[in-house]
Each structure stands twice: as structure tokens, then as C-alpha cells.
């Protein structure tokens, strides 16, 4: 029945549906599309970087354009690809895992997505409007305050808008997990992916405001003549570094913890064993999140904060290896003695464990402050953070997509293509980045657009570039897999993996109210408990009744559009004050939409019991 409805609906109504949706499952799809789009752009930028470095004194791109490429590669991958893809998984899974019908703030959920998308579009609009930002993804002052043109202005405004979206999404998940859990779903029965989402949301809440302030100060310096980072006015450029890293270090845990959560879901399912050391895993997650705020200055060892500060931050950094090690061993012990099934999701998980461990060990190496003076700003650092971000976060996203694809889209991704993707990407990843450790130790600095023929750096760079192309092939095969599966794949049941957690208790496709009756949770891995006792589904916690659902709204889109327009106004008013009119119009659209949201009652709607029995809303 649902397919005939879908066929009858035109493209227009489908588009309107997605523009106005407040359903977490559709917002997950939007995040996946947006994040996937920017992942491709960031990947193309990476390929251009690697082509430029394939031989000494290459002139594939100019030095200035290279700076733009590397800045945008980093900024895009962190803010516009990795984070939204992680949010796609969270939105698709977390409400189902806790037995909720939606998130706590469906309207804000939609607003968070549109702010991210318009922020990303504003940032990338710089390519067509006189050049992209070129001060590195860290945008250190005074390089960023004196960078000519409007590139860095687009960085400031684009990240400000998408950062606001991220903050909103973080608060939404925090409240969802505290308030919306099904009866019996105590904190210590929550699946690990929900736990990591919870901790990550807290990190977002306390880390992103530091970025907000940093970006405001940078914006004021560049566009409104203030002197925060201008030494001639008494300013201090190290303030930017502190603000950036007070945000920036928690940010890397914001990325990696959800990936940890994904692996902690996949391993029990495909080992047919409960997660080893659940309590320790929760404890380790909380501890990593807490310590994540105590280590930002390890990015600034060479700034000259002094031996006392450097020592404290070095020790705090090394301490994070302990909870991370707890996790690694618990994953290994989860597999120990299990009845293991190896498929694409498991392959990514198995590939992750050694890859991430290498990244973690180089992390302890660079945490040693005296040694860091050698590694700092060399390719050793580039190799280290790609091992943790690609080997951890990207592997986690691929694993999660393979695992939850049948939940999100009703079909299992093709296994053969999935394995081809894994092996090409996995081999390409190690080819690209393993050699970069040695390039760094040989003295190759980060962010330089070229190197000399007499520096013996050529072989390593050739290998690295070849590896990058392997990764690109893997990514292309994955996209092909998605297209083939969407076109030809067969619908599977709601529980294709013989799953353990609540998301597998919903039918396929999941109705937009998720659960007709809220499930009763009787322990960790609630669906598995029901299965072991011979039941096919969850025991309901309530009789069948009317279901209250939120109304769709176009306002989040309009608000974000208003900020997008205002962004251009703020950027160009420094050239011509008349652009301030554009800024005022944009802010007017935003505030007007907020006013409408405030004064217009939105009570949501009810799905009636009689309609539920007829299968409405499927």
C-alpha cells in the first residue's frame, strides 16, 4: 500500500514532505544526503592535494589554491561530512533504541539539520565568490585575521551557522535520552550507541559555545574592526588558539565516541554474545568525555605555555589511553568464544580495531611534550589524526551504514560490493597514511604545497597518492552499491541480523510513530531477552491508544535560509555598507519566523486507535 502511495505522489509533494519533515527517520536521511554530498566534495579536495604532492615541485595546483584546498578539505570533512553522517546514524537509531516515538524537540531537530546544510552551502559558496578560506581548518590568528579576500569570512559565518545547528542537535539528544526512554529503559540498560550519543551531546553542549565565541571574535576582528587578535591594538592571538582547541579537542571525541558506540552494537550482534564489560564500557565512555575537556593545550605544546602547563596537559592526554584501552579489550573479549558472522559491517569493525590502535599509540607518542617538538606540524601529525579520524570515525560510519541500512531503507546493502569497498578502502587507507608517519619523521612539514627533488620524499608521496586513489575507488563502489541496492535490492524483515536491541523490534518499514505500543524493557538487550523467552516481539507497556505526534513545519527551513542570506550581508558590508540591508533582511526573516513559531500554537496531532488498527501511517 505504501508503495502505491509513493508512486502516486509527485516529486513536488515528496520535496515538500522532506522540507517540512520533523520525523527523526526522515531527518536522518537528510543528514545522510547532506553529509554524503560534502564527503564527496571533501574527498575530491583530498585527491587534488594528493595529486599535487605526487612528485616534487609539481604545479598541478598553485600554492594559493593548495592552501584553499587543504583548508576546505579539513573544514569540510570535520564539520560538514563526519558530524552530519554521525548525526544521520543518531537520528535513525537512538529514538528507536530507547523505545521513543520521536525526539524531544522534533521542530528543533529539523532546524538543526537546515542550519547545518545552509552553513555548509555558505562556506562552499566561497569557491565561486573570489576564493575559499586559506588559513587552515584551525584558522590561527593572525594568519586568519590578515588573510585577504573574503575566504575566511565565509569560514566564520558558515561555521557559525552550522555550529548553531549542531548545538541545537546536541541539546535535543540530551533531552530525548533523559526524558523519552520507554518504561524499564534505565540508564544502565541503554545500548552503548545511545550512551555514546548521550555523552557526545553533552560534549557538544559544553564545547561548541567556545567555538561560537571564537568565531564571533574572529568575525569582529575581520569585519568590524575590533582588536582581539591584533597585537598593535594590544590583542593576543593565542586567545584564538585556546578558544579553538577548547572546542576542538572535545570535537574529536564528539566524532569518535559515536563510532565506538556503533562498534559496540555490531560486535554483540554478530558474535551472538552480550557486550563484554558493559558497565566498564559505559564508565570508559563517560571518562573519555570528561578527560576530553582537560587536554586542549596538547595542541599548543610549542606555543610556549611553559613546562608546568605542558606537563599537566601531557599527563592528562596520556590518561585517555586508559579508558580507550578498556574499550579495545572489551571489544576483543566480546568476540571471544562468540559465534561470529563476518559480513561488511563486521569487516569494518575488525579493520577498525588495529587501525585505531595504531592511531591511539601515535597519539600517546605526540602527547609526550618534548617529543612533540619534533612531530609538531609535520606529516607525522597528519598521519596520526587520519589514523584516528579515518580509521576510527569513517570506518565507524561505514560500519554503521552497513549495519543500519536495512533499518533506514529496508534493504541490505550488497555484500560482495560491500566487501570490495572495505578491502580497497582499507588497503588504500593504510597505503596513504602509514607512510606519512615516516615522511613526517624525515622532516616533511604539514600544509606545504610542494617539496624539493633532493629531499628523498618522492617515493613515500607516490605511495601515499596511490593509496588515496584506492580509497576513492572504495568510496565509488560504495555509492554504486547504494544505487544498485536501492534499485534492485529486496525488502527484508524488520530484524534481518537477529538483533538484540530495540530498534530491531519495529517492522519494516518502520511506521512514522515507530511503536504502536510503547515497549516494556526488561533488561539489557531487551529484544534478545524476549527472544530467549520464546516471544517474537516486545511486550507492550501500554494498551493500544491514540498516539500524539508533532506537526510538520517549513519554519526551520525559512529560519536557516534567513541566516544564510544574512551571512552574505555580514560578509560584504565591509566592502559596501549597503550590504547591511541584506543582513537586516536576512535577520528579519529569521526573527520573523521565530516570532511566528512563538505566537502560533502547535499542539501536534493524534493518530487514533481505530486508524492504527487499520495500519495508518505505515
Amino acid at each position, binding site marked *: 500500500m505504501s508503495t502505491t502511495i509513493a508512486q502516486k505522489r509527485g516529486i513536488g509533494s515528496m520535496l515538500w514532505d522532506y522540507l517540512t519533515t520533523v520525523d527523526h527517520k526522515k531527518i536522518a536521511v537528510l543528514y545522510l544526503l547532506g553529509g554524503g554530498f560534502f564527503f564527496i566534495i571533501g574527498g575530491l579536495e583530498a585527491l587534488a592535494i594528493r595529486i599535487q604532492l605526487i612528485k616534487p615541485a609539481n604545479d598541478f595546483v598553485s600554492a594559493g589554491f593548495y592552501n584553499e584546498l587543504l583548508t576546505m578539505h579539513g573544514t569540510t570533512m570535520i564539520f560538514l561530512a563526519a558530524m552530519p553522517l554521525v548525526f544521520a546514524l543518531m537520528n535513525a537509531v537512538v529514538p528507536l533504541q530507547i523505545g521513543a516515538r520521536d525526539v524531544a524537540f522534533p521542530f528543533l531537530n529539523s532546524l538543526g539539520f537546515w542550519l547545518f546544510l545552509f552553513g555548509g552551502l555558505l562556506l562552499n559558496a566561497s569557491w565561486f565568490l573570489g576564493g575559499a578560506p586559506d588559513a587552515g581548518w584551525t584558522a590561527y590568528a593572525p594568519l586568519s585575521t590578515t588573510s585577504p579576500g573574503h575566504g575566511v569570512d565565509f569560514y566564520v559565518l558558515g561555521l557559525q551557522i552550522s555550529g548553531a545547528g549542531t548545538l541545537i542537535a546536541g541539546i535535543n539528544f540530551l533531552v530525548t535520552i533523559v526524558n523519552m526512554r520507554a518504561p524499564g529503559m534505565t540508564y544502565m540498560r541503554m545500548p552503548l550507541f545511545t550512551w555514546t550519543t548521550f555523552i557526545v551531546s553533552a560534549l557538544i553542549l559544553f564545547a561548541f559555545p567556545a567555538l561560537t565565541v*571564537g568565531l564571533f571574535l574572529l568575525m569582529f576582528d575581520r569585519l568590524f574592526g575590533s*582588536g582581539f587578535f591584533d597585537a598593535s591594538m594590544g590583542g593576543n592571538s593565542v586567545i584564538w588558539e585556546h578558544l579553538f582547541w577548547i572546542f576542538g579537542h572535545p570535537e574529536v571525541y564528539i566524532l569518535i565516541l559515536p563510532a565506538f558506540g556503533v562498534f559496540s552494537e555490531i560486535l554483540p550482534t554478530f558474535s551472538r554474545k552480550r557486550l563484554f564489560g558493559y558497565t566498564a564500557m559505559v564508565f570508559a565512555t563517560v571518562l573519555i568525555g570528561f578527560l576530553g575537556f582537560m587536554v586542549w593545550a596538547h595542541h599548543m605544546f610549542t606555543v610556549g605555555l611553559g613546562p608546568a602547563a605542558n606537563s599537566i596537559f601531557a599527563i592528562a592526554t596520556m590518561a585517555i589511553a586508559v579508558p580507550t584501552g578498556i574499550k579495545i579489550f572489551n571489544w576483543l573479549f566480546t568476540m571471544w568464544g562468540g559465534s561470529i558472522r563476518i559480513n561488511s559491517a563486521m569487516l569494518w569493525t575488525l579493520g577498525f580495531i588495529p587501525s585505531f590502535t595504531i592511531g591511539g599509540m601515535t597519539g600517546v607518542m605526540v602527547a609526550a611534550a618534548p617529543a612533540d617538538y619534533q612531530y609538531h606540524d609535520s606529516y607525522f601529525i597528519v598521519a596520526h589524526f587520519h589514523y584516528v579520524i579515518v580509521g576510527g570515525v569513517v570506518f565507524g560510519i561505514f560500519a554503521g551504514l552497513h549495519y543500519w541500512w536495512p533499518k533506514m531503507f529496508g534493504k541490505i546493502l550488497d555484500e560482495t560490493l560491500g566487501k570490495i569497498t572495505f578491502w580497497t578502502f582499507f588497503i588504500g587507507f593504510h597505503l596513504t597514511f602509514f607512510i606519512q608517519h615516516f615522511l613526517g619523521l624525515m622532516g616533511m612539514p604539514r600544509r606545504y604545497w610542494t617539496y624539493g627533488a633532493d629531499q628523498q620524499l618522492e617515493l613515500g608521496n607516490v605511495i601515499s597518492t596511490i593509496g588515496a586513489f584506492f580509497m576513492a575507488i572504495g568510496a565509488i563502489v560504495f555509492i554504486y552499491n547504494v544505487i544498485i541496492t536501492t534499485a534492485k535490492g529486496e525488502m527484508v524483515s524488520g530484524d534481518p541480523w537477529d538483533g538484540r536491541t530495540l530498534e530491531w523490534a519495529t517492522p519494516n518499514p518502520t511506521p512514522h510513530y515507530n511503536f504502536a505500543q510503547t515497549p516494556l524493557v526488561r533488561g539489557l538487550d531487551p529484544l534478545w531477552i524476549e527472544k530467549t523467552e520464546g516471544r517474537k516481539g516486545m511486550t507492550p507497556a501500554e494498551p493500544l491508544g491514540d498516539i500524539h505526534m508533532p506537526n510538520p513545519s517549513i519554519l526551520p527551513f525559512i529560519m536557516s535560509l534567513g541566516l544564510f542570506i544574512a551571512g552574505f550581508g555580514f560578509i560584504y558590508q565591509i566592502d559596501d555598507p549597503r550590504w547591511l540591508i541584506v543582513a537586516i533582511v536576512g535577520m528579519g526573516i529569521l526573527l520573523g519566523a521565530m516570532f511566528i513559531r512563538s505566537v502560533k500554537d502547535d499542539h501536534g496531532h*493524534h493518530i487514533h486507535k481505530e486508524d492504527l488498527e487499520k495500519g495508518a501511517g505505515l
Partner: protein
Amino acid sequence: MSQEHTLNPEVFPDEPEKATLEGKNKFLGFWFFLGGETVLFACLFGTYLALQGSTVGENTAENLFGLELVFIMTMLLLTSSLTSVYAMYHMKNNDFAKMQVWLGITVVLGLAFLGLEIYEFYHYITHYDFTFRSSAFGSAFYTLVGFHGGHVLFGLLWIITLMARNAKRGLNLYNAPKFYIASLYWHFIDVVWVFIFTVVYLMGKVG
């Protein structure tokens, strides 16, 4: 009809702001938001403290600030926080008219505070030629205090909108959480001002 009934119960609950799931979510979500706002202001305070001495000339904190005006502003804002507490007290007793009166007094006090702040900035700019662009100290001062002033302005617009929107229909369980979190916001603004008064003005005069 059932919706109407749930939002307008015959007996108003003790904590109308948390009586519905939406209200509970708003309450908790707003507390989290204030946690984020705390970090935002902490960063601004940190920046201000780092740049406090970077005056480039005679316009130092000691020369500029007059505690008399700032003391009056502090009293106005502290009192407005108290009046918003009275408003919430009447909200819990389901006395809409009195709640509106006390919210109205809160708004008047907030407007007076904002007026004095604008006068203060105007005074510094015209009499001392001390602007946002004078020095890193100037940038940090106007940014920290200005962010707070912006919050006051937003809070006033928010409370006025709520008062006007609900003037004719009175309290119910749909708008009670809205009033409550607006008052939470107002308290937060007040707390931030206590720190600004201490760190910027008192320490500026004494330090």
C-alpha cells in the same frame, strides 16, 4: 476535545511548567541550553580578563567606569529578577492577572536597565572616545557587556511577546512552560550581570 481538556484541567497542578511531556522537555532542554550559555559567557569573561590591561592609552577600566551608574543598573536588574519570581509564584497559583502585572514590572525594570546601559556606552563613546575599535580592551569590554545587553534585549522581546500573545486567553498547561523558561532565562541574565558587575566594574576600579 481531549487536547483542550488536558491543557485546561479543572485543578491546576502544583508545577504547571512540568505537567506535560512537552513542558518537561522544555524545562530540561532549557536548563541544558543555559549550561551552554554559561560556557559562552565563561569564554567571553576569559577573553576579557586576558585583554583587560591592553588599553593602548588612558582609557583604562579605572578611568572610565563610574560605580554609581553601574550600582543603579545592578539594583534594577536584581529587582527585576525578584519581580519575575513573584510572577512565577502567581503562575503556580493560576492567578494570570497578577502574573501579568509582575511580568510587566519586570519588563519595565529591564527596559530601564537597558536604557542606562545604552546611555553608559554613549557616554564612553562621546566623552572618552572609547569605542569597540579603540583597543583590545575596548573590543573585549563592548563584546562581553554587549553580549549581555543583547541577551537582555532578547529576553524583553520574548517576555513582551508572551504577555501579548496570551493576554486574552490566560494560563494553560501549553503556555505555562513558556512563561517559566522565559523567567529562567531572565534569572540567568541576572546571574551573568552579577559576574559582570564584579569582574568588570568592581575589579576594574579596585584592580
